[in-house]
């Protein structure tokens, strides 16, 4: 999904930073630019190029067909796994205690509840994460707009 974007985004900061370093070496004395100075320049250049790493990286991962698929997997698997495994546990308990079909029935419902519980929790987390990413994007957009 990010294949066409990555090579270009990988090259830009490299070019920018090498430029900066040559400038810094000519400006600075024998020791060259300090780390803070360099860091400041890099973050400035990154900001200018519109690359704010972590938030952007997360955003990129959340986009695209693969990401949608994985979101669907992430939630649906919680329900299926809990239901199947709990029913199997119930069946095994029945098998051991000879109480067919009561434990299986009980664990079928418990498993359903546990599955929904996990699925809702996962969905809420994904929601919170998406909201955070959106918020951060809005912030970076606002800050770049201010500068311009």
């Amino acid at each position, binding site marked *: 999904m990010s294949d066409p974007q990555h090579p270009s985004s990988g090259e830009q900061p490299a070019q920018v930073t*090498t430029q900066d370093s040559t400038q810094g070496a000519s400006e600075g004395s024998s020791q060259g630019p300090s780390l803070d100075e360099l860091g400041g320049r890099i973050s400035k250049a990154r900001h200018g190029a519109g690359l704010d790493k972590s938030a952007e990286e997360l955003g990129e991962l959340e986009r695209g067909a693969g990401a949608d698929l994985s979101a669907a997997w992430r939630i649906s698997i919680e329900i299926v796994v809990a239901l199947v495994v709990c029913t199997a546990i119930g069946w095994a308990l029945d098998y051991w205690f000879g109480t067919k079909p009561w434990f299986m029935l009980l664990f079928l419902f418990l498993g359903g509840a546990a599955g929904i519980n*996990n699925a809702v929790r996962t969905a809420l987390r994904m929601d919170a994460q998406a909201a955070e990413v959106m918020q951060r994007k809005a912030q970076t957009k606002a800050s770049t707009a201010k500068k311009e």
Partner: protein
Amino acid sequence: MSVERHIDHSSPMYQFVIGRLNDWQLGGLDISFSKAAAFMFGAVIVATLFLVLTTSKRAIVPGRWQSVSELWYEFIADMIKETIGSEGRKYFPFVFSLFSFIVMCNLIGMLPYSYTVTSHIAVTIMLALSVFVLTTFIGITRHGTNFLSFFVPKGVPFVMLLLVVPIEVLSYFMRPISHSVRLFANMTAGHTMLKVFGSFVVQMGVFGVLPFALIVALTGLEVAIAVLQAYVFTILTCLYLNDAIHLEH
């Protein structure tokens, strides 16, 4: 072992057969070096070599290769910072190795003629169980008996607790299973799908161009899924660590 004989070589499931590279027996135990073991070692070696070689210069201004390694490092470091906070720093080596191992296994599995280790639930469930045991251990050592309050949601009337607590406990024990099944199912389904469409190319003759075009697209999608599922596995590990450290859902 007997499975090897039962699966036809043209079957789309043949790619998942764990072949033995030699025949070692130790007191009745089969300790042969398998294809799966070889690819696991391969993933570890490739990841280690890549990280060591690209960062060996330790340049303050990173070159292209060093940038990749730094991005890789920062990706996990940021993930931990965002999901766990500063207390998660201790667990960085664990999370980083987990991510590197899974992403390398998944990506090596995308090479033709290779083998996808993570398409076996035996592998993914051991990874998930190690996370489960670690998080439970951290929860218990950090909070003692207080850890049990994790299973008791706040503000629930006592009568409901009789029902809610078992559900919470079951949910907790379902975690390693869903954690491992998600990765295993994604890798197995994807690779089977590729093989099935691959057999269509051969069977359909001239019209095989159509499934071939689809395979090209699917391969791209699979590479994305390989990285994405490693990411999902890792971020869930972080979330579970966060639960154990901060005792909140």
